[in-house]
């Protein structure tokens, strides 16, 4: 049974942001701040880099647009050229709408499944779920977790450090796998 890390509870978004800044300044890397809703300014407070998800979505959108335009051109110019009211086979203005729709569709898949990929979800088992109190985080609780993997991790120091920041109900989490 390995240890996972330390969990400390805070009472408000303000104290969580404050704690995140201190944890960041202390040099911790493998930590996270849990809250019931996204907190404005938390990315900077934790020292996180900008999410790279946007590039993935952009690439997906471009793929969708190219696929949509390519599909229509291929169907009407190469695979199945069909004369309808003498209209040109390569009627590119008429392809605008499906090109646009497929761009949006692919971007949306990129956004949602890319978000899941970057967040490593679905992940149904996680050590934080072994804490009894942690489930309040989806309602009204604010938590900081610092992981064992962190190079600066020293259990007693981390506990007293989090207590010093105003953390309560400090727990040492076990990874039960």
């Amino acid at each position, binding site marked *: 049974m390995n240890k996972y890390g330390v969990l400390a509870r805070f009472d408000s*978004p303000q104290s969580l942001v404050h704690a995140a800044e201190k944890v960041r300044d202390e040099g911790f890397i493998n930590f996270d701040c849990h809250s019931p*809703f996204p*907190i404005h300014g938390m990315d900077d407070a934790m020292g996180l880099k900008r*999410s790279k998800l946007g590039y993935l979505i952009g690439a997906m959108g471009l793929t969708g647009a190219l696929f949509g335009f390519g599909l229509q051109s291929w169907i009407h110019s190469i695979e199945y050229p069909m004369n309808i009211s003498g209209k040109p086979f390569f009627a590119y203005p*008429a392809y605008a*709408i499906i090109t646009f*729709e497929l761009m949006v569709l692919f971007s949306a898949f990129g*956004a949602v499944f890319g978000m899941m990929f970057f967040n490593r979800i679905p992940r149904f088992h996680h050590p*934080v779920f072994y804490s009894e109190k942690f*489930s309040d985080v989806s309602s009204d609780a604010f938590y900081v977790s610092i992981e064992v993997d962190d190079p600066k991790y020293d259990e007693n120091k981390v506990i007293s450090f989090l207590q010093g920041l105003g953390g309560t109900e400090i727990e040492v989490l076990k990874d039960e796998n």
Partner: protein
Amino acid sequence: MSNEAMKSKAQIRAEKLLPGNQDFTSITNDIAGVPEQKKTPIQWWLLFGFALSLLAIFAGSVGFLIWEGTGIWGINNPVFWGWAIINFVWWVGIGHAGTLISAILHLFRQNWRNAINRFAETMTLFAVICALVFPGIHVGRIWVAYWFLPIPNQMGMWPNMRSPLIWDFFAVFTYFTVSLLFWYTGLIPDLATLRDRAKGLKKKVYGFFALGWRGGNRQWQHYELAYLVLAGISTPLVLSVHSVVSSDFATSVIPGWHTTIFPPYFVAGAIYSGFGMVMTLSIIARKVYNLGHIITVEHLDKMAQIMLLTGCMVGYAYSMEFFVAWYSGNQYESFAFVNRALGPYWWGYWAMIFCNVVVPQFFWFEKYRRHIPFLFITSILVNIGMWFERFVIVVITLHRDFMPGAWAMYNPTIWDVSIYLGTFGLFFTGFLLFLRFLPMVSIAEAKLVLPESNPHHGHDHE
């Protein structure tokens, strides 16, 4: 000084949108408490029974339609498009408010949307399902409805991608898929809340769909970006969907349809009817579930303002159509419009004008925007009016076109009516199941309206 003023402004706004002393805990309890109710309210069962009986009518009518063919409808020559297309356009239009609220108002940082966006998004999903039924069944031989799709087949046959009907299929299909993804993404943190409060089997089911959400900021970071991008791409999407629907009409050569005003006019009408439906549903739901402190009169007031705006836009479009018909000097075009207002279906036209142009004018006055029974009645009138708008466009235009020798009257049959009523069964069955099992207001987003959710609230930061 300005800090004080800012704070009090934020507080005043929060008090209007979330009256009473609410905090994070009470919001969770109030919203999550509804799907967690041990005993289902009797009103819910009554409504659900009613919805199920309509659904049975729907199943029976569609079954008979598939068995017998589209000859059971009142369509004739020249009115080849009857109630099926009217209902399709009507339901798709209703769907528009959901995406407008969740995407466009999100981009404009209209916080008040947080109380009604889940509601409206769900309405969108079921409305679009009801809409998609009609193109599916109107083809007659529905077992070949997959011919819409560009899939390689043994006949070597492909859809005509230059046809607005195929554009429409792609637009509505994409719209449905993106709305579903948007809705589900917004639901993930709330499913985690329900998971954390539930026990036993329910915990497993909610937990499965919550995907193991932990609320860590490393997750919120990507989540928020994904949500923002979805809002960004849904905005042009929602404006495109009804524009494409309108091109089903506008790319034809029929007088009264062949107009460039159609796309914006259809979009405005769609948003107008969608807000009407959100209003109807939210007035019922806040009453049944005592959520008057979360979906407040303030929210209803704001929705009424949007209905006033879009109602005026459709009113402008109606008059502009008449002006252009006269100004064009085209006798067929002029006749089509005179026939709308004074022809045999004059009652359809004036019902539309009354419901869509006259009724929303009451919303100039705050008194009417905050009068709940009045809002309830007008929101239903709005949707009746928008149904008549599509009736006017489809039936009145088709029944008298170029040659008087080809004119005819159109009468719907009992099957037209029963399939239309049946889609209400489909809509309300889905919607009531949503109210019973899922949070009708976004729990995570409702908290963002509280000033306490802002980390700069209450103390000087930096």
